[in-house]
């Protein structure tokens, strides 16, 4: 497997470098992924041939740019199995998308006394917007518990989701423990009680096939930069009827039908949300990233990550004093692993791994409530993606053992 994957590796020039005199092992993919040449080249090609502002122009470049931009809307629709391209709103990223749902849909539909149900797994981006909303309108937050091995506790979900629930907001996959949540089951609970189902797909769309309709999502958000696309672009997908009910939040060029001195009419969905010049090249780059992912196949990517995790997890489990958070069964995870070495702060561990060329993240991963739930202040996190190999896994293990030796057995 590892070897065959190296075909894709060649598409990512950044990986072929040394860091601290060691070959780079990039295992920080949950934070952001690297970009294949096809994406870089598409963006470059756009700027060198077709760059113009979109929608407003009669001239040839403006037509070409508009067409390239709008084609991506259809591409995204197909990719996540939406129903209609009007449901695809381009945003800066997942954070902006979720904020818009809370500040627009939420602020106009959630009332005092309503409940918003989240889980302990949530990233701050799918948590703080709801805290703010709850404060503003006088709603109440509830948190779905986790099972002992770190999976979403469906019984707790069933207990918490009631007729008082207005919104259920849940990540499709956790950015800390890699667990994939049973969105379909939770959606059914939400809908049975008349609640709206908001899904944070930032850690799912890059890694597994997503069908927003099958999942029963009402809103679904994700980021381009975590799925091979440029920074500064993301998607808010929403059911048309719900998007139609949402007031826009950013007012200005191109989201407007008519502006008087004191009154303004807005355009239809999705344009009413896209005020001002958008990240045009970013959207076009996102289209190229989707093409690249689809050419490989999402099933193939899931399988590859599964194989890597199955390979590395037992080796990590064998390291004395290494605690791994979340399910210990590889089949319950995406390519994300969070862990701590007893007696060593994850920042120290990450610095040590970096000396061996291994890039992992250390910290709370924007999931402080989960950290508290796990009873830690931080973890180290290694996250694998399609271009990682068994050799990368081997180098991770070796680097952890080196660090352990250095810090805990007093080799310095």
């Amino acid at each position, binding site marked *: 497997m590892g070897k065959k994957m190296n075909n894709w590796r060649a598409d990512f020039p950044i990986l072929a470098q040394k860091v601290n005199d060691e070959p780079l092992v990039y295992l920080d993919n949950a934070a952001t992924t690297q970009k294949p040449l096809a994406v870089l080249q598409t963006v470059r090609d756009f700027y060198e041939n077709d760059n113009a502002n979109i929608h407003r122009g009669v001239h040839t470049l403006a037509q070409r740019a508009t067409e390239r931009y709008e084609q991506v809307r259809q591409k995204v629709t197909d990719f996540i199995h939406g129903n209609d391209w009007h449901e695809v709103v381009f945003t800066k990223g997942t954070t902006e998308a979720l904020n818009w749902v809370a500040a627009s849909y939420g602020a106009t539909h959630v009332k005092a006394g309503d409940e918003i149900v989240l889980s302990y797994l949530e990233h701050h981006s799918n948590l703080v917007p709801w805290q703010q909303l709850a404060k503003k309108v006088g709603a109440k937050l509830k948190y779905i518990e986790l099972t002992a091995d770190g999976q979403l506790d469906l019984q707790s979900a069933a207990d918490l989701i009631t007729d008082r629930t207005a919104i259920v907001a849940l990540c499709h996959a956790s950015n800390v423990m890699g667990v994939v949540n049973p969105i379909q089951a939770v959606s059914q609970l939400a809908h049975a009680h008349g609640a709206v189902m908001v899904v944070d797909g930032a850690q799912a769309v890059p890694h597994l096939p997503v069908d927003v309709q099958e999942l029963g999502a009402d809103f679904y958000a994700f980021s381009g930069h975590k799925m091979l696309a440029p920074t500064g672009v993301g998607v808010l997908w929403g059911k048309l009827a719900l998007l139609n009910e949402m007031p826009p939040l950013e007012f200005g060029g191109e989201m407007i039908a008519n502006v008087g001195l004191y009154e303004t009419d807005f355009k239809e969905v999705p344009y009413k949300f896209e005020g001002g010049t958008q990240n045009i090249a970013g959207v076009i780059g996102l289209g190229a990233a989707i093409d690249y992912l689809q050419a490989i196949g999402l099933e193939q990517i899931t399988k590859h990550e599964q194989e890597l995790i199955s390979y590395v997890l037992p080796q990590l489990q064998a390291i004395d004093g290494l605690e791994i958070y979340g399910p210990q069964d590889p089949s319950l995870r995406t390519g994300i692993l969070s862990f701590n070495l007893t007696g060593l702060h*994850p920042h120290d561990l990450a*610095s040590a791994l970096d000396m061996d060329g291994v890039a992992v993240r250390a910290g709370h991963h924007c999931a402080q409530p989960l950290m508290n739930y796990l009873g830690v202040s931080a973890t180290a996190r290694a996250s694998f993606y399609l271009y990682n190999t068994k050799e990368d896994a081997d180098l991770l293990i070796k680097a952890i053992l080196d660090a352990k030796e250095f810090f805990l057995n007093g080799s310095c």
Partner: protein
Amino acid sequence: MALARLNNLYRQVIMDHAKHPHNNHPLPQADHELELRNPTCGDVLTVQMKMQDGKIAAAGYTGTGCTISQASASMMTDQIIGKTPAEVEKMVLGFSDLVMGKEVPDQAKLLGDAVILQSVAQFPARIKCATLAWKAAYQALEESERND
């Protein structure tokens, strides 16, 4: 092997301070106190001081953190004892410059053992860890000035 470079950051003195930290305890009689957080990792550090005759008579700290932040807190609390608030504020500014790789005049005199943390300058992501305790001391003194 590249790990050997870690010796640059984790000098023996630093490791010793982290493993056997000085002043790592609450100070019940403290008259200055401040809690600070490293937002990246969520670590929390509380620094406490007790003034006497215009000088810091005792200093202590509590809280969790990485090797660098623990060692730094340990060294900082050692170094500020016997200093006036004005002297401490100068030390903190000097230390901050030091770990950002800037030249600090008379650094050994100003900061004592803590100059060893100069090595952090080569590890920019760890600067915040090194400065956490120092900032807490600075802000604790500033706050009480404001309240005067």
